[in-house]
């Protein structure tokens, strides 16, 4: 079963899509129930996969590697030179992203129950398709599968925005689609060239897109610097747009504003992480020297982006756009942590991906609930909602605090580790070589933390506090909503809130699973010591070793 479980996770939403297609008509409550049921089954399967992953780690003792692998020949194979496979597997990092995806999808679907009244069948089918695409990226161990899924996510989201979006939905959908496709085409060119280079210069003379093979090739120093340089640029073109990384972030505010709530949740919660995950999975391990060289440049852009997007968020009057800009700012932290090339920084960055998914996803859900009642997100038109809607106020403040990194909640862990990794990047502690950044990078990044609190609290103050302000003829209860949140809405937000608290107070299980995987992926060897590590395999093990020698000497 262990080799089939990931495929089951991937197939189960597709089965739901099939069920939806068998149904008659376009609307009706059965479609949303089918979709919710399917996504819950997927979540349960993902939890099963998680526990099997744990067993597999224990039994094999390989905490850092991939588990639950399944590999089937797809294109070529056998005697031919081409060996492209359907190859899935998860390691300590992707397992959490898979859980995040399968956790958020049912909540997003449940959150759409009252908002989507037209063409429900297509809507839910597209959401499930989107889930398949995202899961495929996190499970893929072959670059073709990775790329196909990476691109495939665009299609459902394009329709979700273009059909169920706001007033300017078509422009938003087009901009989103073209912007991201333009970048990822370059990424694909890079992928092909990388595979070709491996075919021409690699030891096996096979045209393969296997991530592990290519990673080993990149880390063994086979790729000369100029090749790495160009490949880095090509990969970055697609991933940076997806992140979205300053200055190619301008598609996001529009897409978020126009997308339906569930689309925004999955877009901010998971889709943006495809970009950072791409950097983590490909750019850093396969192109270690280029990552080192580009580090300061990428970090500078990240830092500029953090403050730039924070300032831009501050002057927004549309709540959703404000949170969209906050995503740009937060993902800057993610990128900063990655390019610190330090255990703490990269771990923090991966934690940040999960945390941002939870808190921003939840923020979009809350804002969606508000929008359903008031049909506006304009800060000037609504205010003082804490009085009639204490529950909504509680959740909005709670997730705001999680988002601005209050210690004790989840956001802080990632933020702190990113800053710690950045500040200590150029020291040679923890048995790893020095990274490209340093304390000087941590200072401007920390300013972003202040600004983050500024605009989020400003938003809370305007929306929740002060005298009550509501547009005429609102709140709209035509879809069966109550004044404050309904039980359904509370039950959507409570699980996320619980996870936020648990992750903030007791992040050890997550950090413990992530660290070996990060050590194996990114620090199998660090740039400065690559030759000596290749010459001496025993040292290679040493650099993976830190996770085994845990201590309490904080």
């Amino acid at each position, binding site marked *: 079963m262990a080799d089939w479980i990931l495929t089951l996770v991937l197939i189960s939403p597709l089965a739901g899509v099939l069920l939806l297609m068998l149904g008659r008509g376009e609307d009706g409550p059965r479609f949303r129930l089918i979709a919710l049921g399917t996504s819950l089954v997927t979540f349960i399967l993902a939890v099963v996969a998680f526990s099997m992953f744990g067993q597999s780690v224990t039994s094999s003792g390989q905490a850092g590697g991939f588990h639950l692998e399944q590999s089937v020949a797809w294109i070529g194979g056998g005697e031919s030179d081409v060996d492209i496979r359907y190859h899935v597997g998860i390691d300590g990092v992707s397992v959490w992203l898979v859980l995040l995806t399968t956790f958020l999808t049912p909540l997003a679907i449940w959150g759409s129950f009252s908002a989507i009244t037209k063409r429900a069948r297509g809507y839910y089918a597209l959401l499930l398709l989107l889930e398949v695409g995202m899961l495929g990226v996190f499970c893929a161990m072959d670059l073709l599968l990775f790329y196909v899924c990476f691109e495939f996510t665009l299609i459902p989201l394009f329709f979700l925005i273009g059909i169920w979006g706001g007033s300017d939905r078509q422009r938003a959908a087009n901009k989103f689609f073209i912007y991201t496709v*333009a970048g990822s085409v370059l990424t694909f060119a890079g992928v092909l060239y990388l595979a070709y280079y491996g075919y021409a210069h690699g030891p096996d003379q096979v045209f393969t897109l296997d991530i592990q093979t290519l990673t080993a090739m990149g880390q063994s120093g086979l790729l000369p610097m100029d090749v790495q340089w160009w490949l880095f640029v090509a990969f970055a073109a697609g991933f940076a747009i997806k992140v979205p990384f300053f*200055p190619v*972030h*301008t598609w996001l*505010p529009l897409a978020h504003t126009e997308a339906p709530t569930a689309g925004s949740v999955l877009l901010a919660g998971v889709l943006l992480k495809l970009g950072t995950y791409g950097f983590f999975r490909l750019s850093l391990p396969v192109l270690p020297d280029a990552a080192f060289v580009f580090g300061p440049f990428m970090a500078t852009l990240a830092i500029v982006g953090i403050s730039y997007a924070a*300032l*831009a*968020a*501050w*002057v*927004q009057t549309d709540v959703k756009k404000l949170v969209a800009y906050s995503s740009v700012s937060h993902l800057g932290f993610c990128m900063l942590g990655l390019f610190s090339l*330090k*255990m*703490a*920084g990269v771990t923090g960055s991966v934690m940040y991906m999960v945390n941002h998914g939870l808190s921003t996803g939840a923020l979009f859900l809350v804002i969606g609930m508000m929008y359903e009642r008031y049909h506006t997100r304009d800060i000037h038109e609504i205010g003082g909602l*804490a009085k009639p809607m204490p529950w909504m106020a509680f959740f909005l403040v709670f997730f705001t*605090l999680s988002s601005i990194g*209050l*210690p*004790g909640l989840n956001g*802080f862990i990632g933020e*702190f580790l990113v*800053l*710690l*990794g950045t*500040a*200590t990047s150029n*020291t040679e*502690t*923890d*048995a790893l070589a020095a990274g490209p950044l340093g*304390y000087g990078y*941590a*200072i401007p990044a*920390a*300013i972003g*933390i*202040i600004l983050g*609190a*500024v605009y989020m*609290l400003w938003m*809370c*103050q305007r929306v*929740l*506090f*002060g*005298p009550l302000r509501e547009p005429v003829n609102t709140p709209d209860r035509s879809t069966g909503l109550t004044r404050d949140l309904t039980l359904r809405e509370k039950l959507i937000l409570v699980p996320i809130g619980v996870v936020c608290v648990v992750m903030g107070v*007791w*992040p*050890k299980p997550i*950090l413990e699973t992530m*660290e070996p995987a990060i050590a194996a992926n990114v620090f199998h060897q660090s740039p400065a010591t690559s030759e000596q590590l290749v010459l001496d395999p025993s040292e290679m093990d040493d650099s993976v070793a*830190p*996770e085994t*020698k*845990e*201590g*309490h*000497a*904080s």
Partner: protein
Amino acid sequence: MVEGTISTWSMLIMLLPLLGAVLAGALGPTVLKGRSHWPVLLGVGGALVGAVVIFGQVRDAHDEHQMVVPLYDWISTGAGTWFSVSVLVDPLTSIMLLVVTGVSLLVVIYARGYMRDHNEPVRGYERFFAYIGLFVFSMCALVLGGNFLLLYLGWEAVGLCSYLLIGFYYDKPAAAAAAKKAFLVNRIGDFGFGLGILLIYLTFNSLDYQTVFAMVEMGFDAAGDKVSTGRFTAIALLLFCGAVGKSAQFPLYVWLPDAMEGPSPVSALIHAATMVTAGVYMVVRCGAIFAASPTAMAVVACVGAFTAFFAATMALVQTDMKRILAYSTVSQLGYMFLGLGVFAAEAAVFHLYTHAFFKALLFLGAGSVMHAMGGKIDFREFGGLRRIMPWTYATMLIGSLALAGFPLLAGFWSKDEIIHAAFAQDWLLGTVGLVTALMTSFYTFRMVFRAFHGVTRVPEGVHAHESGGWMLVPLVVLAIGAIFAGYAGVTMHPGGFVGLFEPHGWFHHFLEPVVEPFKVNGVGHVAAGHVGEGSGWVVAHLSHYGLMYASSALALIGIGIAYVLCVDSPMLAAVIRRAFPRTHEVLYNKYYVDEACIRWIVEPLKRAGRFCVGVDNFVIDGIVWFVTAVPRGLGWGLRGLQQGALQGYAASMVVGLALLLVIVLFGTWT
């Protein structure tokens, strides 16, 4: 100290109030309603018991004065080690815990009476108590935490509670704005604080108190190199940024006066007695780092002295009782930092401890007045209340005397000690301390006289009444504390009055192990009762007795001036005000600092934000548009060729063929 006792009770101290908060929050709206104070009251009471137990453990400990109990691993460093959740217990912790839980319990009892309107719980009653419980948890975590990360956690968490409680009356725009301001100004301080913690980790590769301070005392970093004084200065000043924010020192004091928008019990608990002293606690805790840098100590002393003076000037002319007390708090915190900066850490902690009694008392008394006046707290609207509210008047009078430094009351002992230490270090610092003492007694009694003396006046439509038992009991308890708390640490006034005034210095001996770094590393340290080097003629001339008499005299003079101006001949006050209109206006408007902040900081940043959006919409999207325009333009150009008319295609075919023929026939390459 017994490890089991320490770990059990320190967990209980944190968890009982938290449990109370959760119960009040979860069950309050539906089940408990007007009884929502009970879980928090019991939780905080349990925490006080725990604080007493821990105090007993520390007091009876013989050789080991410090104990660290790790609880669990929290965040990984990425290098195989973990930042743990651990508690550290020593004399400083035990005193802080007593102050925090003691004042909290009294405030919760008081709030049971205060948060009611005609004995009906006000809206948000359960929310109020849930926040208070959360605050006690956070504050205890702050003082119990065994490493810098937990300090930061507590630091931010108390800031959050402060935010929530300042904004308790959230439908009042001023309250919502004040709450946000408090949080943001604190964040500015925390920016430095966080960077300081990162720099500590960078230098010592650890955030654990014991590990770090051990290395600081040896003067070596993690790699075994000597740590430069500059590095110590940098760390200390960055940490001090946090203290400046949290303890409302210049220039980040601006949030505290506005924070008075919160309910009065909150002002007493958070913005007078406990949270705002976190900065003082932190500097004492990091004494080793601060004492290693003379520059940092000088900065601490100067910021403290300046803040003490500066805030007192603004308190002189305010008319809102709570605002006067807020500026007074800022000023008294300034005294504490002055004490720290002149290496008299035990005096600073002593002042923190006595201040908690009388300032909490004054705020609760002001709350009692506000309760009776139907929410009015500006003493231009009422007066002569002593006949209506005799208990409130009596207790507030005691509190005011203690604040003014009236001889033999709590504030007298601790404030004198700080001023003395300041004189020993530098005559200017000492003089500022003395002048501020004069202003303190003036503004305090101006408030007392205006509110309680003279003709009885109350706002229209208000049924003025003395507060009920729930509110008066805490006032009386605190008043007793304001009289006697100072006797825990009599050091510098030798005398033989019933043995009470013997300079036994018990408090100071108790704290000795904690403030040791200030003595060991201190460059120009002056122990209480000793005259240090370079103290100049002031100390030589002003002996202990002299200083004692001088400050007592100043307290009385201040009270006298207040009496003359407010009771005896109010006309004189008006004349003075008219004689210096500009000065009065500047002071009354708090030096226009808030306006300057908005004009020079907030507005430019907002403009920058609008600029960023402009760049997004026009520059970046413009480039994107241009890029997409290329294929679009090409398509537009080529569209002309596909017009669908047959003769056009035929014509181009003929032309093409002709061209090809020409090339084939006359081409040079064939």
